[in-house]
């Protein structure tokens, strides 16, 4: 053993085994119940959109890595999660070129231009969704997307119906139906129960910070309750807001994205609550039927500002020193 070459590195010499791959793998596992339901519900086109979104997102990452001469890092599956989430938010009938454009914006404008993994100030998927909402709202119109489908429930997008018809439309949507996915919407965003199960799994595994999720849901419920209590005839009840549209997906999977959300406890609570608050403000007062995408982008924006609220470090501000 005279000239054995040893590995020399710095402490700590142990690691708890966590990695980016583990994190993203767990996100994908947690998304599977909702995604599977979407495929069963909306058929082969949904499978097509999900796979195209996931694979194209990964492909964009490879292309950009090669172009910018960076290490190809699709192995950590971050782009796969971005793509999968994108696919789950769009209707099953979205044309292929819109999907590819959307993932292009998400991966490249949302993530890569900011320096890749860890650098994005916004959730990349939401950047893609927001650009699509502005550019081609017609392809995100859930009412026209599913005209050729035969459903045994009201084939109206709940939030759009609420916006256009007012609270009279609410009669055709029961909370149970919304929770069980008996509504039209994004491929993976209709099955509330699946999203909740996946989200709770992710929280228990520690990959989604529970403070953000709980505060987000509390923000939605409290704000919606205030509106509903003041004008029950003009605004929808809180549980409708919670189960309709992207709210659950936003609370459990989108608001918790690491690099665009705070890490200290009080900021996490503020961040989540403001997110829920903004969702309801946009829905009830704004012009968009579903405010989740924009609300989360807005709280992403204030993340660096509020994350400076943090506990004092050891020995700071101590008088005996």
């Amino acid at each position, binding site marked *: *053993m*005279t000239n*054995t*070459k*040893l*590995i*020399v*590195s*710095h*402490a*700590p*010499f*142990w*690691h*708890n*085994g*966590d*990695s*980016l791959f*583990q*994190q993203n793998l767990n996100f994908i596992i947690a998304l599977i119940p909702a995604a599977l339901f979407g495929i069963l519900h909306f058929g082969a086109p949904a499978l097509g959109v999900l796979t195209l979104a996931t694979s194209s997102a990964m492909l964009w990452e490879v292309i950009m890595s090669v172009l910018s001469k960076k290490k190809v890092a699709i192995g950590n599956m971050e782009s796969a999660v971005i793509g999968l989430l994108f696919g789950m938010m769009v209707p099953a009938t979205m044309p292929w070129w819109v999907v590819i454009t959307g993932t292009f914006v998400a991966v490249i404008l949302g993530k890569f231009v900011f*320096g*890749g*993994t*860890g*650098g994005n100030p916004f959730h990349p998927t939401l950047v893609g969704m927001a650009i699509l909402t502005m550019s081609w709202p017609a392809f995100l119109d859930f009412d026209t997307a599913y005209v050729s489908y035969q459903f045994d429930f009201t084939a109206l997008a709940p939030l759009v119906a609420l916006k256009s018809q007012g609270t009279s439309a609410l009669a055709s949507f029961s909370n149970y139906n919304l929770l069980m996915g008996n509504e039209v919407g994004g491929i993976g965003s209709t099955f509330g129960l699946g999203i909740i199960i996946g989200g709770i799994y992710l*929280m*228990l*595994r*520690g*990959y989604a*910070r*529970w403070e953000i999720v709980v505060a987000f849901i509390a923000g939605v419920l409290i704000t919606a309750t205030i509106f509903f209590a003041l004008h029950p005839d003009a605004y929808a009840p809180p549980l409708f807001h919670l189960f309709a549209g992207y709210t659950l997906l936003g609370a459990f999977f989108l608001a918790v994205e*690491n*690099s665009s*959300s*705070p*890490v*200290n406890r009080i900021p996490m609570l503020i961040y989540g609550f403001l997110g829920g608050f903004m969702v309801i403000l946009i829905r009830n007062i704004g012009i968009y039927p579903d405010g989740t995408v924009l609300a989360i982008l807005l709280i992403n924006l204030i993340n660096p500002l509020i994350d400076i609220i*943090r*506990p*004092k*470090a*050891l*020995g*700071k501000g*101590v008088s*005996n*020193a």
Partner: protein
Amino acid sequence: MIKRSLFALSKPKLTYDLLDTSLQSVDEIAVPGSLTLLLPEKIDSAKKALIGPGDAVKRGQKLKLYDDSTPYVLSPVAGKIKGFDSYSDDFGNTATYILIKPDPSAKGDDQCAQTDLEQTLEFAADYLGQIPGELPVSTLTNPNYDIRTIVVTGADTDILCDTCQFVCTAYAGLMVAGAKILKAMTRADRICITVPENLSAQVDLDGFNVLRTSDTYPSNLPAMVMKDHLGKQLSPGMTPEDMGVCFIRPEALVSLARTYETGQPVFDKIITLIDKGGKRCRVKATIGTPISKIFSCFNVQINEQDRIIIGGPMRGHATYTVHHPVVPDMDTIMVQDRDVIPELSDNACINCGECIRVCPANVPVNLLVRYLEADLYEEAADRFDLESCIECGLCGYVCRARIPLYQYIRLGKQELLTLRENA
């Protein structure tokens, strides 16, 4: 290795190991055919050296490189100086290896260099700074410090290690005697000892103020002991010594007592060897014994790309050579197989916040590392609490992006010191 638990809502908990009671005896290793002494001073070819190859040395002889140098080592054996080599540690500080060939034929009174040992701090600083356990003489004699409290680390500071606990229980009498000697030498009026709260061994600790520390890492680290038990929070950049507290290994007290009892310095260091399977062996080896000797005694096979860690898994340091000698502060040697060495990466921080939740000092590691990566050390210290770090290594342990966070922080502190010295 302790893995992330399946349910990770709360922060991970690493616990200290209690004394391994199955190991009652210590295996002694004979003095090898060649000893290597580590002298923390680099060779300066411009100066005239006091010692050179071929010089005969006595047991207990003080070896210094130059007339004006303060660092010294004591030769543990009578013999001959074979040669010198240079060594550099993980921060690039250079030191000197002195190779000594023991001469077993040397006998009688001329074997020992110093016989009358005075019980004063000045004498101890001049002669006993390198006894096993490393008596912190430079701290105790530093006129800038007013050391009033001495804390004996009866509870090991790193996980897996139990050498200090072993010394405390096996040599309690000597330790108490050593503490009395030290107390008489210094101005300290209070001697405390940290003891793991779950340690069941009954030890008579006469004259000690016993501090029962929790089993959760890092509660045995000096900064945490100061905060939890002595009611003193370290301000950023301050050391326990600045606040009049000196931390000392129990083995230093034991060696001190033995030295004055026998009238000559002692050189056998107690080390716990943790092999690849996590099995412990207790070894008593002469200071200067190459660690390869210990491995061959216990049949620990060292292969290419294994890792030899001196100290524990959270705070130790890896050595690049199996010829590294046993030094006075070496409590634990741990061998890691190449297959279990965790991979590090050059990923950017993803802001997952694991380090924030685990940090016992509330350092904003996620922001700090961005500044450290950009070499902005002053800013890191001013705005992001670089100096509040108590160096427990938990941030690097939990980092999801596998960034060597603890390395960045220690490098940052080192660079900051250099910046301030040059300013």
